[in-house]
């Protein structure tokens, strides 16, 4: 009896499903598209996101408090010459700054916000050197030799600054400046030159470093010399579950985004993996788009004739295969021209497109 009942129910459900499909199919198709949905204005969205109530505040608070018991050990390790690397889910900014303000009061602390889009590393290192200079001045022993007034820090070269920070100025070896770097794997610090400089800074005898990472591939930034001898990281897993409010400021909100904007960098990577002919076809399209910024795009026929002239393709089929590949990688999109023709366009801003052309021409 029960089994039958179950079967009936399933049968009924299946029947209803197919009826609904039929009815739906016979009706008029809606002409609305997903892209017609009006998305919320970004400012409104950000304001709304800011006013979201944070959940589990009590639990997060007690978790952060529990980390306070680790502070003495962290100070001990910093004094022994290690660097501290914090990882774990959640923003570690508040935790590290709290640690620095409460446990590292005897030394100057400089904070670098690595999550910002661009950071001038030379200016940051100059500021570190100046902070060290201030600290050494106050600790100067009457008998100790102290370098006389030299040229101001902001006109010195990076190598000079590093030599200053590494020199043994005072007998006391525990005189150091602590550099806190939030998101040492952030976009502004990711390039190899900056990481090399940071490593050399960390290796200086008067500098100690505390940093946090969030990117899963962050360890790829460093080679063994940097990890073992320069940064000398001690890893600490400190998940905080605190939202990334400060770190996410410059990232576009996903809800406002729409997902149509393709960053130039990923496009460049994809293009570099294609054959030279495919790249040249793409270049033709890009040049046309840059030359005619007000048009909807390049008609396919025009593209074909230019590519044939330049011997990039031999037939329509070859061109179509290139275009399919571009579409698969979301490098180009199709639009309807006012004439009714299909036009191709690259969904990138003009500057991004110029940069992309530069990248693939190298």
């Amino acid at each position, binding site marked *: 009896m029960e089994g039958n009942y179950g079967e009936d129910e399933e049968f009924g459900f299946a029947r209803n499903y197919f009826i609904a499909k039929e009815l739906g199919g016979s009706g008029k198709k809606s002409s609305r598209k997903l892209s017609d949905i009006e998305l919320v204005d970004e400012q409104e969205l950000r304001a709304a996101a800011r006013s979201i109530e944070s959940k589990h505040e009590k639990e997060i608070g007690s978790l952060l408090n529990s980390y306070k018991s680790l502070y003495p050990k962290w100070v001990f390790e910093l004094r022994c010459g290690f660097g501290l690397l914090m990882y774990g889910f959640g923003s570690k900014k508040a935790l590290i700054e709290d640690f620095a*303000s409460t446990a590292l009061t005897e030394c100057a602390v400089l904070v670098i916000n690595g999550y910002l889009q661009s950071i001038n590393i030379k200016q940051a290192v100059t500021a570190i050197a100046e902070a060290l200079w201030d600290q050494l001045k106050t600790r100067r022993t009457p008998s100790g030799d102290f370098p006389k007034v030299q040229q101001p820090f902001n006109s010195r070269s990076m190598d000079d600054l590093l030599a200053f920070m590494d020199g043994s100025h005072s007998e006391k070896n525990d005189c150091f400046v602590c550099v806190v770097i939030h998101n040492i794997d952030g976009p502004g610090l990711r390039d190899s030159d900056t990481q090399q400089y940071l490593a050399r800074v960390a290796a200086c005898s008067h500098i100690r470093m505390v940093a946090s990472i969030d990117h899963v591939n962050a360890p790829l930034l460093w080679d063994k010399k940097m990890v073992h001898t320069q940064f000398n990281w001690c890893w600490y897993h400190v998940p905080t579950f605190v939202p990334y409010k400060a770190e996410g400021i410059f990232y576009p909100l996903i809800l406002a985004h729409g997902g149509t904007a393709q960053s130039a960098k990923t496009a460049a990577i994809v293009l570099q993996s294609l054959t030279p002919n495919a790249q040249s076809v793409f270049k033709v399209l890009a040049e046309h788009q840059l030359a005619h910024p007000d048009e909807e795009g390049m008609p396919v026929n025009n593209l074909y004739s230019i590519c044939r002239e330049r011997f990039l393709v031999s037939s329509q089929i070859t061109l179509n295969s290139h275009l399919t590949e571009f579409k698969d990688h979301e490098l180009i999109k199709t639009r309807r021209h006012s004439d009714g023709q299909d036009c191709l366009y690259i969904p990138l801003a003009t500057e991004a497109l110029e940069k992309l052309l530069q990248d693939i021409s190298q």
Partner: protein
Amino acid sequence: MATPDHAENDLQPFFVLHKALVQKSERKSSGSRKIRRRIELSPISAKNAEKMEIGTGEERDDHHYEHLRMEAFNFVWSKIESTIKDVLRNINLNVFNEIHRWVCESFDAIKSCGTTLTKATHSYPIVTDATFRQLFTGLVFTKNMEFVDDLMTFEELGLHLKSHGCHVANLSSIDFSANNGIGGCLRSLLRQFLMVTLDAADISILASWYSDQGNYNKPVVVIIDDMERCCGSVLSDFILMLSEWAVKVPVILIMGVATTLDAPRNILPSNVLQHLHVSKFLLGSPSERMDAIVEAVLVRLCSGFCVGYKVAAFMRNYFLRQDGTLTSFIRALKIACVEHFSSEPLSFMLKALFVEENSQGFWSEEHALFPEEMLKYAFDLPSCRRNNTEERTGENLAHDLSELKRLQKCWSTTVLCLYEAGKYNKIQLLDLFCEAVVPCLGNSTASNHHLGSGISSSSDHSIHHQYLISEKCSFICQAIRKVRDLPVVLLYQLLKSWEKLTEDVIEIHDKVKELQSLLKFENGKSLKQDLTNIPKRHTSRSHLNMDKDSKVLNEKAARLMETMVRDYMQPVECIPFHEIVCFKNVDKLQSESWGED
């Protein structure tokens, strides 16, 4: 902290969180707002000052012991670090001396070419003789893919050559990157010789420096750490430039090579290779260095600090399977040391126990002053709980600690003797060490599994070692077996080395001397027989006798080794109060060295 201040700081590329507490006057923020921001210091400083002045007696005590532990750590680690440096320097000394000899010979050859060094610095000196100006180049083969281990080596080489009167500059592959180009490496070179940073670096500046009084009678050596990581084009340009200017500045090049000695052929074009007059040098292998460090730090216990068997196994696996660099091994040891001194309250005793000379004097004074809580904690340590009959006094503690020291010495002597025997079978000390630290574990050991359970704890370790001796796969067993198979001459050498090693452990020393005298007696007998004229038949019989006699000696030596392993090789984790000197927390070490999995 005011919120608007806070929010604005979040958007600055960098800002000063606070200045050092010692400073009384507040520094006004100068310069543009964008670069500096200060957060109010007073509330925090007031709180801290309060804590430091008014703290309770207990807090002051804690602070005092924390300071003692910090001091002890510094002492212990600097001892370990200097020991490692000395060990590595000794390994490299032969090669360094060879290189120095070659540098002097090359410099003499350059001088004897007869070119005079004029003070004029033309941009393109005219090459007077028809032959190529070749640069004397030494390729130092590191036999190690991990260049990080050899950073120290090349630094030491530079210091060694400097101490023998050469001008030395150390360059690394960063100076030869494509970004910096030839200007970058020249700048680095000039900075090291002239002690100034110049924006417009030119080789003529080097030439004029060299021709200065006092500079030109010494060879100029340029050491490039890791040749394979240099940008080929920049390196080629550099070599060509040096060879053009070889008349003015006779540079001798030393390059570190990791892969094969043919590596220059892969990186440099043939027209550049023609300018190099190459000599080859080989450094000691990484395993040689590892053994030397394990011997000096973990077996001979230069500082008294030691690690437990799980930690030893982790460090060994980490080295063999993951990282492969000596640097990371030493770093893991340092992390273990830091962990030990920051978490074990009694670790401050290590300094007095092992490092200071008059430890006896210290103990007799200090043990009377040990606070009650500390004694209670010490006698409550897991390793002491078995022996509850002992009275909890400072005197007993001092006595037990000196007993620990004595047992450690015996253990260390036995392991070193095993290593000497194992050398004939190419056994690595790291492997022997990891076996030798394994303690008896009660019911869960393989030994119990092998020999049945229900064994009393006091004889556990000797039974476990019986297992080690009999188990064919163990390195210790292999070492002992080798003793049985050694020919007489090598056995003699082995016994000599044992004689030296066992000087501090009289019981073993006497037995070794006994064996040595037997061996001499046998040798003497065989010598006499060789001298006299004996028919062939008799010779073969006497040879057989001689063989049998020497086999008896081998057997005796092997038995002695077994006795030593059984009776004198007590692993530290079996000794009471070992928690003071031994670090065992492998989980902490693993998560801190490399993060959690």
